[in-house]
């Protein structure tokens, strides 16, 4: 179309060319100038293009860097997003854990410790986050470096999270064990519940903080997403710019080539125009060629116009592009500015986080202290639990005992119930009795009044007695003195008794010695006197007169009597020293033997014995025999001058003693001299009337006395005498 038009136009143009031959020259000049200007402009454009190329290269480099950074940021943001998600999860897990913790607060003892550790770790992590935040500030400038650190950190956090998860599992197990323990500790739970409420509040605060963090994290995620989106857009823009720049560069190259070609073409055109000027004539042909050439040139011009238009358009586009790039740069700058602001906000946020972490640390420390207190309380509670366990055992034992006791008490109660019934009855009886008692009490009241008076009298008497008691105390003291003196006196007496006993024993020994002397030494001379007198009487009687014979007879008789006296005295003294051997004595047999042994003097009457049955007695048989001998022989002797001799021997019982007696009808004695009757060598009759030494009754008394008996006599002078002696009976 354009060629048809142009061919049409060329016809016109050829017509006009002719007209415009001059105009063409001018126009050629203008074209030269325009070409020169174009050349200049193309040079400028080349410079500009070079600058643009450099700028584009720089831009491309920057976009590349930005792309890298954007990618790094994308990765970092992804990691951050992942971390934030993990944190969110962790936060949720922590919330759950905290809820569980709140639920499990009874067993906080160990879990609290673990929470302390966890809190410390959290605090440590928060510190790390704080550091990280600080590092993020730096990382805003050196994000690439920090992403690596974040990667490491992320791994550590993953491990920490795993550890936390493991700890949470362990806590779960622990929680189950602690739930069982909690049942035992149910008593202690109330205290812990209070504590738990506080911890719930603390956990809620923690949860709230975690939510805030979560929101913050979400906000950061959105911001990162926006940043990522922006970066993506920037990346696209950058790519487009790169392509555009490449096209621009290519177009610029093409334009440069075209420009060069145009320069050459313009030079050829200028040369041709000069040749045309020279060849004006030759132009007819040449015009044809020229027309052709013009056509070509017109085409070429059109093309150039189009190219210029295109170039203009391109330049315009480039300008637009440059403007857009400027805007993009401005946006980039703005974004960087925003990022800086964001960084500042992050710094502030991190500071806030740091501050919150610090607060959490404080809280953690407080929790640690609280947990220690809880641990101490739990320890005390455990001790208490042990003590309670022991106490429970004791209680159980006591309960058993009480159970037994209860059974016993039940039985006892039944008995008591029965007793109570009985008591009820008794109570009724007692009511009656009480009435009687009330009456009696009235009587007693009266009596009491009387007694009060009596008591007053008694009090008075007591006073008197008190005085008397004091006097008695004094008297007792005196008595004690007296007693002491008496005791002393008794001791002295005792001493004297001992001394006397010794003296008596000595005297007895002397008496023994004396008896021996008498026995041996006195008897010998008397025997000599008696013996020699007898020799005189036998051998020299015829040489003596009657008086001499009577004197000799007297010597013999007296020496004989003296011998008898000495023998009697010795036997009497021996009696005092002889031991009494007590046996039961058959008195009938003893008396019979005594009577049979007695020798009777021719001067004496035949004796009529009247012997009653005699009771047995206790005594020394040989000594008692001597008593009977002496008494019976006396009875016979002193009955000698009577026409008949009757001797009655009998006994009677009296006061555990047997009283024996020998009764005769002989000379008797005057009771006036009764006190001399039992004296040694005492005689109440003359030697001529009745011979004897007067030792017989003394011996009787001594023997009876040694048997703790008594001897006594009754007599009427010339009518007879009765001699009594008593001995203990065999039952005593």
């Amino acid at each position, binding site marked *: 179309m354009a060629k048809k038009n142009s061919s049409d136009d060329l016809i016109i143009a050829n017509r006009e060319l002719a007209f415009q031959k001059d105009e063409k020259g001018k126009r050629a000049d203008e074209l030269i100038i325009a070409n020169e200007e174009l050349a200049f402009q193309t040079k400028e454009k080349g410079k500009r293009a070079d600058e643009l190329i450099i700028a584009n290269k720089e831009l491309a480099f920057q976009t590349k860097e930005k792309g890298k950074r954007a990618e790094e940021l994308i990765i970092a943001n992804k990691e951050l997003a992942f971390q934030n998600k993990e944190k969110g999860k962790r936060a949720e897990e922590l919330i759950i854990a905290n809820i569980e913790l709140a639920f499990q607060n009874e067993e906080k003892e160990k879990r609290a410790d673990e929470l302390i550790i966890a809190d410390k770790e959290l605090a440590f992590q928060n510190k790390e986050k704080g550091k990280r935040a600080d590092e993020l500030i730096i990382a805003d400038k050196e994000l690439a470096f920090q992403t690596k650190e974040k990667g490491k950190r992320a791994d550590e956090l993953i491990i920490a999270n795993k550890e936390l998860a493991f700890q949470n599992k362990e806590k779960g197990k622990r929680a189950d064990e602690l739930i069982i323990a909690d049942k035992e500790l149910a008593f202690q739970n109330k205290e812990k519940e209070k504590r738990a409420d506080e911890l719930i509040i603390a956990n809620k605060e923690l949860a709230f903080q975690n939510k805030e963090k979560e929101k913050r994290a979400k906000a950061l995620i959105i911001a990162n997403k926006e940043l990522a989106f922006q970066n993506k857009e920037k990346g696209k823009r950058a790519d487009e710019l790169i392509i555009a720049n490449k096209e621009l560069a290519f177009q610029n190259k093409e334009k440069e080539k075209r420009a060069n070609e145009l320069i050459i073409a313009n030079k050829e055109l200028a040369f041709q125009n000069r040749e045309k000027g020279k060849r004006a004539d030759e132009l007819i042909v040449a015009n044809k060629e020229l027309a052709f050439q013009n056509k070509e040139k017109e085409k070429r011009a059109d093309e150039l116009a189009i190219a210029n238009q295109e170039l203009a358009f391109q330049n315009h586009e480039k300008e637009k592009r440059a403007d857009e790039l400027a805007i993009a740069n401005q946006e980039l700058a703005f974004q960087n500015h925003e990022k800086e602001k964001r960084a500042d906000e992050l710094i502030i946020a991190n500071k806030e986080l740091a501050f919150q972490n610090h607060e959490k640390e404080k809280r953690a420390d407080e929790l640690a202290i609280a947990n220690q207190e809880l641990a101490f309380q739990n320890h005390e509670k455990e001790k208490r639990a042990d003590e309670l366990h022991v106490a429970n055992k004791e209680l159980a034992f006591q309960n058993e005992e009480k159970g037994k006791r209860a059974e016993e008490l039940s039985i006892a109660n039944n008995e008591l119930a029965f007793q109570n019934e009985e008591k009820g009855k008794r109570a009724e009886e007692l009511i009656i009795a009480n009435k009687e008692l009330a009456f009696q009490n009235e009587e007693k009241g009266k009596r009491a009044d009387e007694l009060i008076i009596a008591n007053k009298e008694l009090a008075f008497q007591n006073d008197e007695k008190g005085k008397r008691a004091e006097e008695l105390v004094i008297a007792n003291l005196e008595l004690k003195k007296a007693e002491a003196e008496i005791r002393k006196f008794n001791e002295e007496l005792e001493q004297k008794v001992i001394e006397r006993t010794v003296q008596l024993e000595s005297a007895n020994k002397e008496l023994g010695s004396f*008896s*021996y002397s008498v*026995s*041996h*030494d006195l*008897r*010998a*001379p*008397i*025997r*000599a006197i*008696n*013996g*020699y*007198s*007898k*020799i005189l009487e036998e051998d020299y009687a015829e040489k003596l007169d009657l008086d001499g014979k009577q004197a000799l007879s007297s010597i*013999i008789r007296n*020496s*004989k009597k*003296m*011998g*008898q006296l*000495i*023998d009697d005295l*010795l036997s009497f003294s021996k009696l005092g020293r002889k031991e009494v051997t007590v046996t039961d004595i058959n008195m009938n047999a003893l008396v019979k033997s005594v009577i049979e042994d007695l020798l009777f003097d021719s001067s004496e009457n035949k004796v009529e014995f009247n012997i009653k049955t005699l009771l047995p007695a206790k005594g020394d048989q040989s000594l008692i025999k001597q008593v009977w001998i002496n008494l019976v022989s006396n009875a016979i002797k002193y009955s000698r001058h009577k026409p008949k001799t009757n001797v009655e021997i009998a006994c009677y019982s009296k006061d555990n003693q047997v009283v024996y007696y020998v009764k005769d009808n002989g000379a008797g004695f005057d009771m006036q001299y009764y006190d001399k009757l039992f004296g040694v060598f005492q005689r109440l009759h003359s030697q001529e009337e009745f011979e004897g030494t007067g030792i017989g009754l003394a011996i009787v008394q001594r023997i009876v006395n040694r048997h703790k008996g008594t001897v006594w006599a009754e007599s009427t002078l010339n009518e007879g005498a009765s001699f009594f002696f008593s001995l203990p009976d065999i039952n005593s």
Partner: protein
Amino acid sequence: MPYSEVEILFAEDSPEDAMLTIRALKKSGFANKLHHVKDGAEALDFLYCRGIYTSRNIKENPKLILLDLKMPKVSGMEVLEKLKSDPIFRSIPIVILTSSKEDPDIQKCYNLGANTYITKPVDSDNFFIVIKEIGLYWMILSQLPA
């Protein structure tokens, strides 16, 4: 009288008692073979052939010894103890003639081996009877060792 013919050795320090005893024995016909010594020492000299009795033959001993207890130098109790502990004289009967009626002496003498214990009566009639009875009993009735 040669010592070998002595049948009765009579130890008595009292000359009166000795005279009365010898008189009583004479009247009974036992005094002609009697030898009287004045104390225990002499009695032992006689029996052991010492002092003035060294000429006596120890193998020809009296048949009976009458011994008073209370004697000077050596008492009758000591003589009794000595003789009854000596196998040579143990078998010779010893009659204790004494004034003592003390029980301890009687018991002691029999413990030492005395054959008879006689208390000399004061009454001379009884005394003669007792001595006569002793002579009769020991010299006639008793069968003594050779």
